């Protein structure tokens, strides 16, 4: 793969504050917020501070400061906001999962998630550190574009395989060996983003050439539609095999946005969106599960949907929980979020909305928006097209996933089985999102070293 000729070196705008000291202060703040949350959780549920506080507080704090040191040594120009935001979100998730565990213990529950989540947090942050250390530059990933494709498709389709594939709550998104389960789709999104970015960088010229004009719109040449058809078919396959509209929408949406950014042709968006809608509508007609999800979305409070098995009970209870939170929330430990099934994973946003209120939910949304905007900003400022697409893709995938999950809980879109990035319980999701954080940090550093890298 040769670099294409279009790499026009823009004048390098040094807008990202390359100051690790800012990051240090923000990390102190993030660690303090986390400590405050944990103290509130313990005081309001068990009314005493126990050493478990440190079990939940120290690992993210220590790992974050280690990451900070690694950045000072290996990527000193990296964006200073990304790590603290990721830490706040991960810490908040931990606090809520721990709080739900305490509530569950009080009610005689035995299925706990907190310790698993702590272990996965440490593993995920260590892997993020490894990414920063071992991936020397953004271009490193370009060498593995087609490996990424195979890896991505393999991971994506693994749950559909016999023997290792597992269905949980109707969606076949997991692989499992014995008691261990893993959601490979989360890692697939990174591999596929690398593949999309690498593929589009090489093909953007030919994709951008469009053919005849019909109704004032330039139609792409038939052969350029090929890859889009392949990805479209793949998404529908995911929808059919894994019974999850969210995953399907996530990959297709990611691809369409990257094609648009790479080519600047809005026709791909129009064609892509209409293809996806057609596919989804046909699937909705043919598959009960999809039409059921639509019914539940439109009428979650109708008794028929509410009482149906796999109906809108969870969605309705989640909304009751959010409404219970009102403007200010009940305070951590003050609500009853465990009334909602999967309060620690799919519905963690309802749990947080109940206890932190609309204000807390807004703060969470703003942090995601800030995280995503930092990523998009890297895309804006990076001189290299591959890195631009990679940063944009990884940021957009976080944004789209937030939209699909939180939108599912708040009835903006039908509910699907994705997890809220960095917040929700689940090792695969944490691992994948921390890798994204690592890659974004790595790419943002290379802006500073831009000239060196491109040359």
């Amino acid at each position, binding site marked *: 793969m040769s670099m294409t000729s279009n790499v026009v070196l823009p004048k390098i705008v040094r807008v990202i504050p390359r100051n690790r000291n800012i990051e240090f202060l923000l990390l102190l703040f993030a660690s303090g917020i986390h400590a405050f949350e944990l103290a509130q959780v313990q005081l*309001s549920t068990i009314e005493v501070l126990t050493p478990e506080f440190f079990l939940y507080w120290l690992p993210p704090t220590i790992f974050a400061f280690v990451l900070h040191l690694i950045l000072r040594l290996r990527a000193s120009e990296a964006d200073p906001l990304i790590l603290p935001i990721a830490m706040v979100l991960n810490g908040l998730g931990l606090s809520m999962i721990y709080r739900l565990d305490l*509530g569950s213990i*009080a*009610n*005689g529950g035995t299925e706990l998630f907190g310790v698993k989540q702590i272990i996965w947090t440490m593993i995920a942050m260590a892997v993020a550190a490894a990414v920063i250390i071992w991936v020397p530059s953004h271009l490193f990933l370009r060498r593995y574009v087609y490996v990424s494709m195979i890896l991505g498709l393999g991971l994506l389709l693994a749950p559909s395989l016999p023997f290792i594939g597992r269905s949980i709550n109707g969606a076949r998104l997991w692989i499992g060996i014995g008691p261990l389960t893993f959601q490979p789709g989360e890692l697939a999104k990174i591999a596929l983003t690398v593949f999309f970015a690498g593929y589009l960088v090489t093909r953007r010229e030919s994709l951008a050439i469009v053919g005849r004009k019909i109704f004032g719109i330039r139609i792409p040449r038939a052969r350029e539609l090929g890859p889009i058809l392949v990805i479209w078919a793949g998404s529908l396959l995911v929808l059919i095999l894994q019974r999850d509209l969210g995953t399907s929408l996530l990959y297709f949406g990611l691809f369409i*946005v990257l094609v*648009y*950014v*790479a080519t*600047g042709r809005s026709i791909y968006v129009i064609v892509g969106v209409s293809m996806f809608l057609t596919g989804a509508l046909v699937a909705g007609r043919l598959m009960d599960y999809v039409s059921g999800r639509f019914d539940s979305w439109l009428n979650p*409070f109708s008794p028929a949907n*509410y009482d149906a098995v796999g109906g809108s009970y969870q969605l*309705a209870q989640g*909304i*009751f*929980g*959010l*409404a*219970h*939170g*009102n*403007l200010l929330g009940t*305070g951590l430990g003050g609500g*009853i979020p465990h*009334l909602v099934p999967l309060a620690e994973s799919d519905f963690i946003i309802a749990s947080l*909305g109940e206890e932190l*209120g*609309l204000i807390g*939910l*807004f703060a969470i*949304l703003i942090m*995601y*928006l800030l995280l*995503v*905007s930092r990523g*998009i900003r890297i*895309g*804006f400022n990076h001189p290299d*097209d591959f890195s*631009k*697409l990679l940063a*944009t893709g990884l940021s*957009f995938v976080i*944004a*789209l996933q*937030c*939209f699909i999950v*939180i*939108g599912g809980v*708040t*009835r*903006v879109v039908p509910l699907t089985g994705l997890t809220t990035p960095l917040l929700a319980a689940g090792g695969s999701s944490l691992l994948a999102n921390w890798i994204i954080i690592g890659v974004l940090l790595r790419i943002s550093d290379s802006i500073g070293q831009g000239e060196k890298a491109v040359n």
Partner: protein
Amino acid sequence: MNRELKRVSILIFAMFLSLFIASTSIQVLGAEGYSQDQRNVRAVYDSYKTQRGAILVDGVPVAESQKADDVYRYTRIYANEMYSGVTGFFSIYQGATGLESATNSYLTGQNSSQFFEQISALLSGNPVQGASVELTIDPVAQKAAWDALGKMKGAVVALDPKTGNILALVSKPGFDANLLAVHSGAESNANYQTLITDKNNPLLNRAYSELFAPGSVFKVVVASAALESGAYKAESTFPNPSKLQLPGTNVFIQNSGEGKCGGKSTVTIADALRFSCNIPFAQLGAAIGQDTIRKQAELFGFGKKVMFPMTSTASVYPENMDNAQTMLSAFGQYDVKTNPLQMAMVSSAIANQGVLMKPNLVENVLSSNLSVLAAPQPEIFSQAVSQATANSVRDMMIGAVQRGVSGNARIKGVTVAGKTGTAQNGQGQPYTLWFTGFAPAEDPQVAVAVVVADGGGIGQGGVGNSLAAPIARKVMQAVLRK
């Protein structure tokens, strides 16, 4: 590519904007509606979050919330079935009745009198504790009433005539409110079904909710009306036949002994009350008219709901009756309906020189830090009759107990005033048996009303004096500690 990136940024912003709007519409704009959805159990859980205040009798809890190890945090514990007619129940699944409902805002700590506690709770993060409610109930009298009713279906209300304080309030059969306070929905619902289908209907409060035909105890009201009208005195006489045809009908009424009322050709109002004769009262009723009787009945509280703080069912004196019906109503038949609380109020007014005090069950309300949030003061309900009428009716009632047909209420060394009643409920139906009265007549400490429903289990075999009067005697003895 940056032009496209800018558009993607706008798209991302729009996606998040939709999340901001959706969450606002759920959490703020729609919150009220969602909280009222009956499938949303959070409001119920909330009511269990703070420790609900206790209901106390002489400082001893008859209902209290104790720590529980489940999501509801507290379990409501009821000490004794004999208070079920007072406390009612507090259930996650069946709601609340009785005092649990009537004083709910105090018990939950949400009453406006706890405003400052609520503010400090908001600032400190500790929930407001419920206030406890101390009752006016005399536990000795309550137990006497409960025991005296035995297995009979009925109710007792005892009042302090000078203050209106309720000293005893029993409805039988009672129920075990703990059965409904259990946290398991299946268990609570099953227990509720058992109670609601029980043929004795234990959840029905016979002391202030159910209405009964009063029979002869209503003669106290009619006698008061006659004296208040100024046209009659206790010694005023009426003809004394042994049978009387109701005007416009071929129905004859008789006195309960099926003879004359005493041996003379005429009978006084005082003797008619003493021997509980129907014919003279029918004539008296026709003479003074239904409007006079109704006016008097309403001064005693008929036709009004009383908040004490539970809400009673209003007693009924019918309207637009013809002469025959007026005559029947004058000895408490036809469609006259009342309950023990109302009849205790009638006795209490006579006992208190005509001044009817408003019944009240709450001595005071104490916040968790023991400051007094409310202490209801005695309130005048009405000047039901003049002092002279009260004294005159009192003397007639003394006659009924000391020298008349209500003798089973007599207490050695104490002058008791009272009146029995044996109301008919139709051909072959068991009687409703009554007693109402007060003691000591010279300085009344207690006014009481007893109703025994379904003939006390022996159909038409019992009368007020045989079944209801002894219960009233035991309650009065308990209050007077005699």
